[in-house]
């Protein structure tokens, strides 16, 4: 252990002292900050304004209000002009500034609300509306048709309003204490964040280990090192040292991001609140600002003790499991660092696990989620995503036990490959050869 400790110290100190470490540690939260502000700014200013003229030859929609978009992206204008006349007035070039409308909605004279697709309402544009705008325009026209239909059924506005009121079912756990309304969404977000955090760090720090091993191989220092320590000690020292670097960076990021978040909140708080729809597809999933608040409130009722205890364990466990494999690949790789194909057997299960995690968020109690959270190659990512959904204790215990077993197993295999690979020069190593080393004697 003494020598492993010396190796850990070197791996840790030399990396933490590097400029690249300091830069990435400081820049990542700034990048996060840029992402938030960028997305707010982009959604505010980039969508631009689309003015749509409505030529209603049927006259049906004369008294039906068609509301503009809340985020000031689409405006409707009912016009008296004939379609041909209006179309002739529109500039043909979409870039021409002096245009009144960028699109015309044409409702034919014989339009019938009972057969709304025959004849069809047409929209002819000069400036192409994006998918979201198209969806929005479609939605507004359908709402207008609904209103017309109600009118023909003699349903007055008050009744209409009542009819349109939708319920939000209060989904809670049986005791209505542990999981209140909005809990599932909060758990889903927290689960996704943790799953992704492990997913990304496996790749990031795994590659760091791999590069470190390659450096030792190509600089040929490894022969001196292995004459002083066992390859296994070298392997463990490197994995743990880089792991400690990862944890340090992670903790610093969390602290810095909290800080950045607070600053961003102060500066952009107003903008953020007024632009909820801009945050991805929240609208299409039926989540509005009120729901978001509910989710935020629920974050505090997540099983924090469980998360604080087990998330780091899965972080470390996953890291150890994959770290040794990355080291083995680094040792087997050629000196020029080619043979990326050797990485495939490691990267595939990591990528599969994030897919399972995404699925698990929607179906936390599925069989896929269960097996994904038990099998060591996928459990670090999947179980982290599952933790906010309060998996059973025995499930966590079994998963951790298998993860530990998996770690011992991969390290055993990796140590064999590592031992042979690091001293092998000038020869292309294939997966078949690596498999042979696993079964070979020392």
């Amino acid at each position, binding site marked *: 252990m003494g020598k492993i400790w010396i190796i850990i110290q070197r791996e840790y100190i030399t990396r933490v002292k590097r400029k690249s470490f300091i830069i990435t540690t400081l820049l990542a939260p700034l990048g996060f900050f840029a992402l938030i502000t960028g997305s707010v700014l982009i959604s505010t200013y980039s969508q631009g304004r689309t003015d749509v003229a409505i030529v209603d030859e049927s006259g049906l929609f004369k008294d039906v209000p068609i509301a503009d978009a809340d985020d000031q992206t689409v405006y409707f204008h009912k016009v008296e002009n004939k379609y041909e006349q209006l179309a002739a007035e529109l500039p043909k070039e979409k870039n021409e500034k002096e245009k009144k409308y960028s699109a015309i909605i044409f409702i034919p004279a014989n339009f019938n609300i009972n057969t709304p697709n025959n004849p069809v309402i047409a929209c002819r544009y000069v400036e192409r509306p994006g998918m979201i705008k198209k969806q929005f325009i479609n939605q507004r026209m359908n709402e207008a048709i609904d209103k017309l239909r109600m009118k023909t059924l003699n349903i007055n506005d008050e009744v209409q309003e009542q009819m349109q009121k939708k319920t939000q079912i209060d989904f809670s756990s049986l005791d209505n204490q542990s999981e209140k309304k909005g809990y599932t969404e909060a758990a889903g977000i927290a689960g996704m964040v943790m799953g992704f955090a492990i997913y990304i760090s496996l790749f990031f720090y795994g590659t760091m280990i791999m590069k470190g091993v390659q450096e030792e191989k190509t600089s*040929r220092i490894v*022969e001196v*090192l292995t*004459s002083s320590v066992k390859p296994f000690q070298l392997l463990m020292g490197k994995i743990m040292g880089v792991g400690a670097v990862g944890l340090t960076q992670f903790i610093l990021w969390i602290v810095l991001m909290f800080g950045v978040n607070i600053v961003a909140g102060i500066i952009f708080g107003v903008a953020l609140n007024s632009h909820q729809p801009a945050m991805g597809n929240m609208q299409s999933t039926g989540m509005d600002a009120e729901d978001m608040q509910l989710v935020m409130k629920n974050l505090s009722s997540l099983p924090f003790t469980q998360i604080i205890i087990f998330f780091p364990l899965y972080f470390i466990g996953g890291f150890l499991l994959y770290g040794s494999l990355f080291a083995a690949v680094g040792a087997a790789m050629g000196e020029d660092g080619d043979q990326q194909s050797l990485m495939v057997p490691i990267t595939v299960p990591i990528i599969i696990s994030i897919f399972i995690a995404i699925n698990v968020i929607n179906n936390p109690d599925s069989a896929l989620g269960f097996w994904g959270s038990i099998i060591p190659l996928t459990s670090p990512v999947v179980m982290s995503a599952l933790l906010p959904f309060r998996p059973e204790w025995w499930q966590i215990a079994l998963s951790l036990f298998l993860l530990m077993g998996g770690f011992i197993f991969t390290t055993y295999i990796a140590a064999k490959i590592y031992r042979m690979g690091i001293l092998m*020069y000038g020869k292309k190593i294939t997966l078949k050869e690596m498999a042979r080393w696993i079964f070979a004697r*020392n």
Partner: protein
Amino acid sequence: MPLLSLQHIIKQYGTYRASDDVSFEIPKGKIFGLLGPNGAGKTTLIRMITRILYPDAGNILFNGEQLTDKHTENIGYMPEERGLYKKMKVGEHLIYLGRLKGLSQTQAKENVNYWLKRFEIENWLNKNIEELSKGMSQKVQFIATVLHNPELLILDEPFSGLDPINSKLIEEEIRAMSKQGKTIIFSTHRMEQVEEICDEIVLVNKGKKILEGGVKELKQRFKENKFRISFTGEISNGLLNNLNVVEQTSGEVTVKFDEEHKGNSLLKLFVEHGMEVSSFNELLPSINEIFIRQVQSN
């Protein structure tokens, strides 16, 4: 008791035997040459002595004890292909390697200072390794090898890539360490250095030991009874008639003499023929010649 004793060492890679029943002993305090052409199995033997590899069969004894990992702290190894971490400083790098060899932080620091001073390179302490030239890093590598004051020093092609000044310096250090009673295994292709430096050698080829012994003793064993005689004046008639002349120039003749006869009788023959002999030498084979002859006949 020898410092190191290899007994029937076998190491196999697939179907290839890199060490095939190799046995030899390395006496304490000697400079021992491990020789052989490329691919003969020298590095495999060294790697087994340094516990980087383990033999498939056979025993290695260190000071009479079964060689184990604890003995690696008593061995300093400078491989032929050697490198350093580019992003470290000379001082911290040496301390790191010293600590891996079992030195405490303070002891390692002390030893680093001692060696930097000895090589008059104290100002390198905080230099980055990547700033060093090839010759400079070789000095650092040599210090790393001897830093923990090992009993056994294994130097694989220590002079390759060294300029003559550094070569001389390292050679002097090797001799000094030998004088202190350290045992040194010296693996090289450069035979003139073997002759200059080594006390004993072992020659391996294709995984097998083909020759071992003291340098002087081997030269005697493989001598061909060749003598070179320098003289003044003309060679007298009939003198060379019964002799096996290998080479003849004016004033010098090389003769291969019968094995039963000693040099004295040859000299006597020349004197009896009234020749004025100015020098008389027995020509011993160089280690290089022995090496080539043995490898070819093997």
